[in-house]
């Protein structure tokens, strides 16, 4: 009854589940009515932070959201 470290198979399945999960998330985002365009969002053009910050960037001023 001694602890057992993850083996090669575990790392392989970690990779498979991780990649499948990312693809699932992107697919759900693509069909969701509240989804966003990944490429446009990467350019920062289709969304705003959930919190608006003051000029110094340390204090939240108001709740933001989707423009």
């Amino acid at each position, binding site marked *: *009854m*001694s*602890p*057992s*470290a*993850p083996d090669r198979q*575990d*790392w392989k*399945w*970690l990779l498979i*589940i*991780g990649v*499948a*999960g*990312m*693809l*699932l*998330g*992107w*697919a*759900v*985002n693509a069909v*969701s009515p*509240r*989804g*966003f365009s*990944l490429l446009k*969002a*990467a*350019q*920062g053009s289709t*969304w*705003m*932070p*959930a*919190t608006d910050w003051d000029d110094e*960037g*340390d*204090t*939240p001023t108001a709740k*933001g*959201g*989707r423009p």
Partner: protein
Amino acid sequence: MTRWLFHPRLLRAISLFMGLLFIAAAVGKLMDPVKFLGSVSDYRFLPQWILPFYSAGIPGVELLAGLGLVFKVKERACAMIISALLVSFIIALSQAVLRGMDFDCSCFDLIGSWAVTFGQAPWLKAHAAWLAEALTGLGVKLASRVSWGTVLRDVYYLAPMLLVVFAPRARAEQA
């Protein structure tokens, strides 16, 4: 000591609890991707071009890993994923606290998106409220500010998850 720590029923209970927790958290985030994107950007931790890919993809990983833990499918690999996610959350939360930032951590509060997404379905609202109460009863605060307390909560989730990662293998699994 190790016999008690790695007792199969204890490991099963940990997997069930953490699996259900991550499924609930993931579904909320999947229901409202744009809100989760905004929440992740609040941390100001990741480069902007990575943010949308990370915030859209991570809930899917949480969901699959949570399902794997609940249904005992590649349980160790799923526990490794959840542990890695928890470590990343601990790092992101810690840097936010150290920088003096103050906002909702968006860990579980998006669970409320279930009811929002399905509009006026009263049965779903009732279930969302029940789930929120049940999770609160288990020590999961749905809306919590970024703080050392939130960091500590993730450490408290990580410790039992590591037991599943390093659980002794069954004889059949070793062969």
